[in-house]
């Protein structure tokens, strides 16, 4: 499992797309933290509202990017984690040596590790500028990306063509945040499923509900693994 995880992580981090995503997130995080750090007055004004903490203000950019672009970025990186291996039949080699569960866990951790490193790096940069670290926002971002990565793996399992998951991933990456935000703002019945299945509602309040996207992610992963265990490769 460790070898599959390592290989997956190397493959993910080596791509131009991933490098651009890391640069984008860390650069924006750093610039935003620097901006607020240089504008104490603005921070004080925001704090007067009483709804946010100082550390949350500094990590505003990274939280925003994750919530609005997390699906797009996450899907663009992990959409072909499974179906590409099946298409190229390379999975036959791995499955002749390891269990499907090992393969899936390796794929999950390899992809998720990329996001743990990217998010952590952003928070480290913010910390170096502002000397503050919003634990809640940090955990919320990590949980959100866990949900995204497991959803991408499930997508990659359900849709057999990697080209199809690329387009579907991009489409969902744009549509899901919109639906997620609309489901928070609207009381319409047809938004309810989105409210409870997508992670936005649970991450709105910093409470134990934050763990629910983690549970949903685990369910996605179990379903994806079960489907792969039953499939002829």
């Amino acid at each position, binding site marked *: 499992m*460790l*070898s599959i995880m390592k290989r997956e992580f190397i493959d993910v981090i080596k791509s131009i797309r991933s490098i651009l995503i890391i640069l984008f997130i860390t650069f924006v995080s750093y610039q935003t933290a620097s901006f607020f750090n240089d504008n104490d007055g603005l921070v004080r004004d925001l704090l007067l509202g009483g709804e946010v903490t100082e550390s949350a203000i500094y990590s505003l950019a990274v939280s925003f990017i994750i919530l609005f672009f997390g699906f797009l970025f996450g899907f663009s990186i992990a959409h072909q984690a499974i179906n590409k291996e099946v298409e*190229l*039949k*390379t999975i036959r*080699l*791995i*499955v*002749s040596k390891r269990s499907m569960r090992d393969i899936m866990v390796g794929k999950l951790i390899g992809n998720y590790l990329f996001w743990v490193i990217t998010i952590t790096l952003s928070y480290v940069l913010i910390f170096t500028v502002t000397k503050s670290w919003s634990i809640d926002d940090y955990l919320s971002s990590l949980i959100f990306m866990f949900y995204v990565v497991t959803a991408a793996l499930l997508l990659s399992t359900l849709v057999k063509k990697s080209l199809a998951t690329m387009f579907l991933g991009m489409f969902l990456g744009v549509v899901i945040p919109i639906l997620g935000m609309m489901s928070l703002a609207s009381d319409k019945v047809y938004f309810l499923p989105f409210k409870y299945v997508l992670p936005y509602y649970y991450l709105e309040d910093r409470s134990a509900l934050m763990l629910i996207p983690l549970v949903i992610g685990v369910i996605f992963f179990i379903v994806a693994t079960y489907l792969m265990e039953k499939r002829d*490769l």
Partner: protein
Amino acid sequence: MEAILEVKGLRKSYGKVDVLKGIDFDIKRGEVFGLVGRNGAGKSTLIHAIAGIVHKTSGAFTIFGQTDDQLNRVKRQIGVMPDVSNLYEHMKGLHFLKYMAELTEDKRPKKELIELMHSVGLHGAEYRKIKDYSFGMRKKLSIAQALLGKPEFIILDEPTSGLDPESAIHIRKLVESLKKSGKTIMLTSHNLDEIDKVSDRVAILSEGVIKKLDTPRALKQEQSESAQITVITKPKLSLERIEQLPFQMVFDHEIEEGVVLHAEKKDEVADLVAYLVQEEYKVYEIKTREKTLEEVFMDV
């Protein structure tokens, strides 16, 4: 001898198409088991089912004493070369082997991985990308990865097809040396001469069932009710004499020193010898030819 693989009533269907229609056989420890069959006979499906790449529809198999649903427990004891089209094209040969070694928890150093590449006939290709490998090189690399983890049971799907004769002989010698070192091997091939040379037992798979299973020698003898007989005598047997023979034997063709006859039953060879002695022929050679495995295969 202990069977390390026992297959019972194995069936595999894709939709309404039955590819394997109830396969029964076993493979004993230390033997080379050859599997032959026409394209589409189900050879690869059978190998994929045993390797856990596809799922059986019904039936069962045990491998190293574990049932098929516990296959994961023994995967490290099995080396599989599924087919050649499934290598990581973007990787370099050596790096690919290193990855495969990690998967099998084979901790051999780089030097030994290079030696493994050399042992299958891959020289100077360690740092070349697999996408730049020829078909034969890919095949050799695929065999090399199947040997990682020092498996006790090695499954090779057409290891020599598409290889030049020199490489094919090299791989055949490798199979023989693996057998000598006590490995159990299952291999498929379209080259029946090769299967004949290396296999202890051969199964002929046709239309999803095993039609024949025995040692190559027994298979050839079982099929050899009739015989082709080379007869070298002085004087040479004339066509007229052959027609007058007191038993059923027909002229096949003439060779420089004698004739080749065809007998419906092997027993008639003894009658021929008796007849030639009685007629005072000087008999220099009487030789019967066994059917080749290829001829046996064609008869199935």
